[in-house]
Structures are given as structure tokens and as C-alpha cells.
């Protein structure tokens, strides 16, 4: 093991350290300063260490270890391979930024609550690390459930409010529906033989039909956690309910563990190098992914609660990741592993990118909430003046999520497009012409995202406060504190690094792809053209150089600036806005978030369920109210809830309250068992 711990042992140490921090925070009871000054910064340091270990593990062969924990005869197995290493790096690096931010964010929290939050927060982090390290179904499920429970308690931090309790319940319910499906999936993979280590599951030779059943169960189960349509309903409820750093953790990292699970089960346990993956699965994933992408962004566009809006964008981005994964499955299913590797790499890269920029955006939303107490965009405006630094970081996040070059969101969407453009290698005519349609979906979603973030940024940070100064806290809003800013700066730097130097990350992801499917992109193409160039296949086919792009765009912008400065006078006057000379303008005449979404509601009317209240002609203080609801509630969730109620009321008939009847039930059961089982 040498002086430095091996990545596996080191990661276990980090996870243990998180657990120690969680428990240690409880001991000096009532001492909030400990949680703020030590617990969160220590958690962040552990995160950085984990990121380094994960990065190292990608380049090493897989390691396994059996822990002397668990039930007798059923010990915990852990394993570190490139896939786990990549996700641990994601977990460590993103959580480091969020933990630093949390140290500043919770500064006004009462001490009793803060110690509890710190405990749940670090247990949550440790459980995610164990999910990624688990090498048997038993430890995986234990960690998975710990993750669900600890995050549930974090979501209901403000449990005094009924709305938050019901959001928490919805989250718990869907998480458990998913967990049941995952459990069943492991059961199917196991097939009644051997034990539940992942090695045994990998070795099991499944019938194609059973493999499909296992895949569908995993897709459903992990999809519920990831937030794919129509199982997404908990995201827009739970993310706004949780404190902002927790929202950032859940949206940035936790839903990515579901992507990890999907990749692990599909590409490793079922698929492996044996080629069990069927292209039909890929088409199913693509269809669901396309639906998720479009629904997510269209619903995001009509939200006015900032955190709900961001939650719907998480739904959208999960859809984009699913598009990449689906393409990978289609290509692998048809026997084109190299093209498949491109899809897989695009999906994993988007997973990392989304974790970074969505974490950043949720932290920015948290800072706004912190300094103004507001989540409703309709009340905001002009925040860039009070909080310029937060505005700067938020702008980076907004440009990154809108997939604009040269930031990171663009790179992964670029790769997904490139994967779709590989469709020409396919022989199957229908599939070959369908793949570009999914690329079209992605293009549409990307442009809609840009629209949505113009709305968010323009309404929250630009313009003027929409309410008069005596009624609005906005003019007094201060900027985020230093710790909050360091956290955001860390993630904003991540947006740049991932956007400007994609080739080094691609090499890493290529290792992950090779370790899973046995095939990857050609390293010659990746390496041969140098670190400046991103060349997934061949130079003549597709290339992109973010650094050159960035340098040129900065250079020409500066050149334009300097030329104008050099040759023209710099005379500048300040006056009132012109606005076509309209004399009686007030700040309430600006667009609100609902107004900005109006064209979208007009164009895509049928998919929304809207309830709109217009002011009457005599109103002296006209107010406009709009409620847009998710149609899924009405065609899926409420009918299911009603059916469950009816079924349970029928079952309740069994409950008579008389002991003789219950004895009769036991008697009948006994007879039935004797007859049928023997």
C-alpha cells in the first residue's frame, strides 16, 4: 500500500471521515460554531481528497476488498474501478464546493438545527460514497436506502410547514417505488443461484427475456431517482423544500448516483463485454430521454419559483444524459462499440458538467434567497447592483447550462450531437433516420434552455426591482458572504476547466468506457492532435478547440474595444431610460417571469394546465396571477392515488376487529398452505 493509501482504501477512509464528522458534530451539543468552522470545511477537505483518489483510480485496474462488516456470512464487498472512480471524483469535487458554501450559508441557523443538519449532511455524503463503492447488492441497497433517508430528513428541515412535509413524503414514496424496482432487478439478475456479489451477478447467464426484464426494472428504479418523466414529480417539490446547499447536493450529485446505477447495471452487470445489450433498450431510453428533455425544459420555462425552475432543468438534463446513454445502447446493440463509446462518454461528461453547473446555480439561488428571502422571480429585479459577485457566478452557470461555447455544457452537448451524427454506420434504416431526430430534440431543448436562462437572469439580476423600495427588500440586499463566494467560485472555475480542457477528461472517460464495454475511442485521435484539440473520431470529421475559440473571442472583443477607445472619444452621459419616449414608465411595467413565459404557454398550450387570473378594468393596483400545473398529476398521480385508496378501503374490509374472524383467517391460510405447498 505504500505511504499513500490505495484509492480504494483512501475512499473508504474519506467515507469514514464523513461519518466521523457527522457524529462528532453532535458531541459539543449546542455549539453551532463547531459545525460551521470545522464540520463543513473538514467535509470539503475530505471531498477534495476523494476527488483526487477517484481521479487516480480511473487509471488503475479494479481493486476489491471485503469489509468485516455486515451480517454474518454476508459481508460487505467494495470495489474501485474506473466507473466508480469517475463518479467518486464527481462526488468529491462538487461536494467540496457545496460544503464550503454550506459553511457560510448556515451561519444564521440556530445551533440545535445546525448540528442536526450537519449530521444528516455528512451521512448523506458518506452514503453516496458507499453507493458508488458497493460491490454487492446488499451493501448497495443499504447505502441506497441510507442515502434516501438522510436526504429525506434534509428535505424536511423546515418540517413545521405542511407543504414541506408533503413534499418530503412524495420524495420518500417515489424513492421507495424505485428502490423496490432496483431490489427486484437484483433478484432477476441473481436468478436464484450463487450470492449477491456483483461478480456473481455479472457471471449469471441470463435468458434474453430475463435480461430485458432486469433492464426495465433497473431503468424504472434508477429513473425514479434520477427524475425521468413521468417519475419526476418529486424533484420540483423536494428541491425547493430543502435548504439550498442540500438542493445543490441532491440535484448535482444524488440524481447522478442513479445514472451511475443505470450505467453499472446496464453496461456492466447485464451487458459487460459479452454484448447482451439490445438496441431496443436503447430506443426505449432514447424515447423516454427525449420526452424528459422536452417536458423538463418546457415546464421550467413557465415556472416563477427559482428553485422549482432549476429542479425542472435537472429533469431536462437527466433527459440529455439519457439521450447519450440511449445512443450508446443502440450503437452497442447493433455492434458498433466505438460509436457506442462516444455516446457513453457524452452521457458521462454531461453528468459531470451538469453536476458542476447545476450545483453552482442552486448555490446562486441560495444566495439570493439568503439575502432577500425570495424565491419568486416575479418579485425580483436588479439584483446585479446589490450582489454583483453572485451575479457574476450565476451568469457563468447560466451560460454553461445554456450550452454556449466555450463553457462546459456546450462540450457535452457537442459530443452528444457527434454521437447522433455517427448514425450513418447503422444498417437498420428506421433507427438510422430516427437518431438524428433525437439530435433535433436536443437542439430544441438547448435553445429553449437559453431562453429560460435569459428569463431567469434578466428578471432576477437585471432590470429594476419590480416593487417600490419601501415594499421590497431588494434594494438592501447584500452580496453573498466570503465562504458562499468561495464555494461558488470553485464550481464556476469547474465550468471553465471542463469547458476549456475537455480532452484530458475525455481520455479519462475513455478509460471508463473501455473498462465497461471493452471498446473506446481511438486514443491516437484524442492524443495525436494535442491537448488544444477535441477530436473524438478523426480530425477531418469533427474537431473543436475550446481554448483557441475562447482566446479568439476574447481577443476580437478586446480588439474591438481598444479600437473604439483609440479612435473615438469616450464621452458618455447618463440619463433616464428612453423607452421610446414613453413618459410614465414605472418599474412594474417590466416583464415578469410569467410574462416572459407567455409565448411558450401560447405555443405549447396543450401540455400545460393553467389557471390564470387577470385583473379587472377597475383595479387600481392590478395584479396578475398565474398557476401552471404539471399535467402528470392529473393523468397519472391522482388516478393512481385514488386507485390505491379504493384498493386499501376494500382490503380494510378484512379488518373486523373480532378475534374469532382473525382466527378464521389463520385457519384458512393454514389449510391453503397445506393443500398447495406441502
Amino acid at each position, binding site marked *: 500500500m505504500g505511504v499513500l493509501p490505495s484509492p480504494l482504501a483512501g475512499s473508504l477512509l474519506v467515507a469514514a471521515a464523513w461519518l466521523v464528522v457527522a457524529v462528532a458534530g453532535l458531541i459539543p451539543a449546542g455549539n453551532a460554531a463547531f459545525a460551521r468552522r470545522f464540520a463543513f470545511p473538514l467535509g470539503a477537505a475530505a471531498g477534495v481528497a476523494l476527488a483526487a483518489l477517484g481521479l487516480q483510480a480511473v487509471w488503475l485496474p479494479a481493486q476489491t476488498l471485503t469489509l468485516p462488516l455486515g451480517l454474518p456470512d454476508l459481508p460487505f464487498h467494495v470495489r474501485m474501478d474506473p466507473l466508480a472512480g469517475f463518479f467518486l471524483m464527481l462526488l468529491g469535487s462538487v461536494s467540496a464546493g457545496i460544503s464550503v458554501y454550506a459553511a457560510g450559508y448556515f451561519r444564521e441557523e440556530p445551533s440545535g438545527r445546525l448540528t442536526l443538519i450537519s449530521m444528516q449532511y455528512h451521512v448523506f455524503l458518506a452514503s453516496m460514497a458507499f453507493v458508488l463503492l458497493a460491490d454487492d447488492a446488499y451493501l448497495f441497497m443499504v447505502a441506497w436506502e441510507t442515502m434516501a433517508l438522510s436526504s429525506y430528513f434534509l428535505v424536511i428541515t423546515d418540517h413545521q410547514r405542511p407543504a414541506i412535509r408533503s413534499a418530503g413524503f412524495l420524495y420518500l414514496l417515489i424513492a421507495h417505488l424505485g428502490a423496490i424496482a432496483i431490489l427486484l432487478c437484483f433478484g432477476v439478475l441473481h436468478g436464484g443461484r450463487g450470492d449477491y456479489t456483483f461478480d456473481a451477478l455479472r457471471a449469471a447467464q441470463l435468458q434474453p427475456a430475463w435480461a430485458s426484464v432486469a433492464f426495465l426494472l433497473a431503468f424504472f428504479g434508477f429513473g425514479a431517482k434520477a427524475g425521468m418523466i413521468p417519475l419526476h414529480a418529486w424533484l420540483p417539490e423536494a428541491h425547493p423544500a430543502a435548504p439550498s446547499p442540500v438542493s445543490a447536493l441532491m440535484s448535482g450529485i444524488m440524481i447522478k448516483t442513479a445514472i451511475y446505477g443505470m450505467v453499472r447495471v446496464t453496461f456492466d452487470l447485464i451487458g459487460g463485454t459479452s454484448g447482451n445489450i439490445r438496441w431496443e433498450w436503447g430506443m426505449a431510453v432514447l424515447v423516454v430521454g427525449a420526452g424528459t428533455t422536452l417536458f423538463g425544459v418546457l415546464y421550467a420555462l413557465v415556472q416563477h419559483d427559482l428553485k422549482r425552475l432549476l429542479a425542472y432543468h435537472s429533469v431536462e438534463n437527466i433527459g440529455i444524459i439519457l439521450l447519450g446513454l440511449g445512443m450508446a445502447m443502440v450503437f452497442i446493440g447493433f455492434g458498433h462499440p466505438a460509436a457506442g463509446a462516444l455516446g457513453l462518454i457524452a452521457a458521462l461528461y454531461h453528468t459531470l458538467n451538469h453536476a458542476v453547473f447545476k450545483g453552482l446555480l442552486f448555490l446562486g439561488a441560495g444566495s439570493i434567497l439568503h439575502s432577500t428571502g425570495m424565491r419568486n422571480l416575479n418579485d425580483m429585479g436588479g439584483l446585479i447592483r446589490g450582489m454583483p459577485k453572485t451575479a457574476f457566478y450565476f451568469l457563468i452557470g447560466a451560460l454553461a447550462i445554456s450550452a454556449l461555447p466555450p463553457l462546459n455544457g456546450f462540450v457535452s452537448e*457537442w459530443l452528444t450531437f457527434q454521437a447522433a451524427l455517427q448514425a450513418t454506420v447503422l444498417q437498420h434504416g428506421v433507427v438510422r433516420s430516427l437518431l438524428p431526430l433525437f439530435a433535433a430534440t436536443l437542439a430544441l431543448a438547448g435553445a429553449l434552455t437559453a431562453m429560460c436562462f435569459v428569463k431567469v437572469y*434578466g428578471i432576477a439580476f437585471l432590470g429594476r426591482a419590480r416593487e417600490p423600495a419601501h415594499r421590497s427588500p431588494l434594494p438592501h440586499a447584500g452580496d453573498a458572504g466570503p465562504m458562499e463566494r468561495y464555494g461558488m467560485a470553485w464550481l464556476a472555475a469547474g465550468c471553465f476547466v471542463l469547458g476549456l480542457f475537455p480532452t484530458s477528461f475525455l481520455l479519462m472517460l475513455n478509460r471508463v468506457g473501455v473498462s465497461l464495454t471493452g471498446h473506446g475511442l481511438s486514443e491516437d485521435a484524442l492524443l495525436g492532435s494535442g491537448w488544444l484539440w477535441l477530436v473524438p473520431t478523426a480530425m*477531418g*470529421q469533427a474537431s473543436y478547440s475550446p481554448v*483557441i475559440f475562447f482566446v479568439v473571442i476574447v481577443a476580437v*472583443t478586446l480588439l474591438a474595444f481598444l479600437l473604439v477607445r483609440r479612435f*473615438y472619444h469616450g464621452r458618455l452621459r447618463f440619463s433616464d*431610460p428612453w423607452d421610446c419616449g414613453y413618459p410614465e414608465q414605472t418599474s412594474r411595467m417590466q*416583464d415578469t417571469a410569467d410574462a416572459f413565459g407567455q409565448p411558450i404557454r*401560447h405555443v405549447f398550450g396543450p401540455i400545460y394546465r393553467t389557471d390564470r387570473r387577470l385583473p379587472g378594468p377597475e383595479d387600481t393596483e392590478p395584479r396578475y396571477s398565474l398557476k401552471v400545473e404539471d399535467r402528470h398529476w392529473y393523468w397519472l398521480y391522482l388516478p393512481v392515488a385514488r386507485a390505491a385508496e379504493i384498493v386499501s378501503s376494500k382490503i380494510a374490509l378484512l379488518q373486523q376487529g373480532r378475534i374469532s374472524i382473525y382466527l378464521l383467517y389463520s385457519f384458512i391460510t393454514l389449510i391453503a398452505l397445506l393443500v398447495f405447498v406441502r
Partner: protein
Amino acid sequence: MSSAPGIAFQILQSVFVVLAAPLLVGWVNQCRAWLQNRSAPSILLPYYTLAKLFNKDAVFAHDASPIFRWTPYILFGCMWLAAGIVPVLATGLPFAPAADIIALVGVFALARMFSALAAMDIGTSFGGLGARREMLIGFLAEPAMLMTLFTAAFMSGSTQLTTIVDTLAHREFALYPSLAFAAVAFLMVLLAENARIPIDNPTTHLELTMVHEALILEYSARHLALIEWAVAIKLFAYMTIGIALFAPWGIADAGDWSALPYAFAALAGKLALAGAGLALIETLLAKLRLFLAPEFLSTAFLLAVLGMLTHFLVKG
């Protein structure tokens, strides 16, 4: 991949586009005036306007933020960059591999995002309205543009504009159905993205239906000049993309100085025709109601997708 003549060509082309772009706008305006039986302004009028604007005193609203201040330069920079990517005079330029068609669409999206943000910065009612409409048009035009470019990418097996143009320029002349669909879609996108009739009216001002003008309402003097210039470069870039995709004959190879005069002449001829055509379209059509714009653009999107499917069906 980069050589001294290549770099010389690259710089020459970028400067040429920036300088020639207002001329194209002047030509379109002149043609439109002739078609509408008006006496035409000088073809150099856009230059005079730019010179006038550069010499005026700039006015900012009191609460303008740095975004408002920097957007004109960013817009100009984005369009200048786009002018460097598009093979206007020659293919195989050294900068071309750094940004392919997806990145090109990304540059236009970046410019659009900043112009919409700047419009919302002052907090006026027209600014927000313009930003909202601009993004409405953009979210439909951008995917249609990508699909058009993908059709060409599928035909040439590459997303690099320079390779695409090389492939398309050296095929024998024939009518490819997929390219025909793509060309119609591209024309529709060009009209929408450059704020032309029937989506927007470039001559309108102070009208409730305006889109592009509402975005830049608060700008004046040198900032307005930069934006107007950027808009001219954008029109030029879009037209040359169209020429490069659908009529690439006559384009030179980078470093081949002898082919340059011919490439110049071919480009000038094609641009003159395209400009006159644009003026004709603007004279013949009327502006659409704003809520017909999504229909117009979704038609473009569907045509582009259809073109792509046609390519897979008939391989051509």
C-alpha cells in the same frame, strides 16, 4: 495545419468580411428602394451612418450594468469570430477546425443571449418585450439551422464547415432533394435570424411589433454603431454560409493566391444576386403576426428534418 499563407488568408478574409458587410446592407437597401419605386439612397449609406454614430456622444441609463456596457463589444466579437469560421473566400482556413458548425450555431446563440440580456438590463417595458420575442424566434430558428447544417454534415461525413464545402463544391452538379429542402429551410432561418420580413421589419422603429429594434432601443452612439455593424456582419455571414452550402462553386483553397481574384468575383456576383433576392422577398411579402412566427419557423424546422430524412431515404 497552419501555414503562413493560410494565416494570411484567414486574416484577410476576416478583415474583408468586417469591412464589406455594411456594403451588402447598403446594396439590399438600394435594391429594395428600386423595387418599391423609391429613389435609392447611396450604397455607402451604412458607412456614413456608422461614422455618424461613432462621433456622437453616448448616453446610458442611470442603472445600466456592466452587461449593458459590454454587450456591443461581445456582439461584435461574436460576429467577427463567425466571419472567421465561415469559408467566404477560401476553404481550409487555419482557424476553421477550431469551431465546427455546431460551434458556429453556438456563437450565434451566445450573441443572441447577450443581446437579450442587455435589452432586459435597463428595465424598460420594451426591452423585456424584445428579449422575449427574440428568444422565441431563436429557440425555433436555432434547431432548424442545426438540422440544415446536419443534412450537409451527413452528406459529407463531417461537421467541419470547410470539409463540407470542399465535398459539396467538388460534386457534380445535380439537384439533391435533401439539399433542396435544406435550402428552403435555411432561407427561412436566414430571414428570421436577421430580423427580416416576414418575421421582423428592419426598417421599423417605434412600433409595437418590432423585435430586433426593441432589443437595441436603449443604445446610442458608438455602442449602437457596433451593434449595427455586428448585425451587418451577421447578415453577411448568413448569406455566405448559404452560398457555401448551396452554391459553393468558385471558392478558392487557402494559400492559392491565383484563385483569389476569381473567388472574389464569384462571391461578389453571388452576394449581389442574393442581396437582390432578399430585397425582392422583402418587397413581395408582408410581415407576419408575431404568433405566426412560430408556425413559420416550425415549418422551417420540419423542412430541415425532412431534408435530413430524405438524405437517408434516397442517399442524395
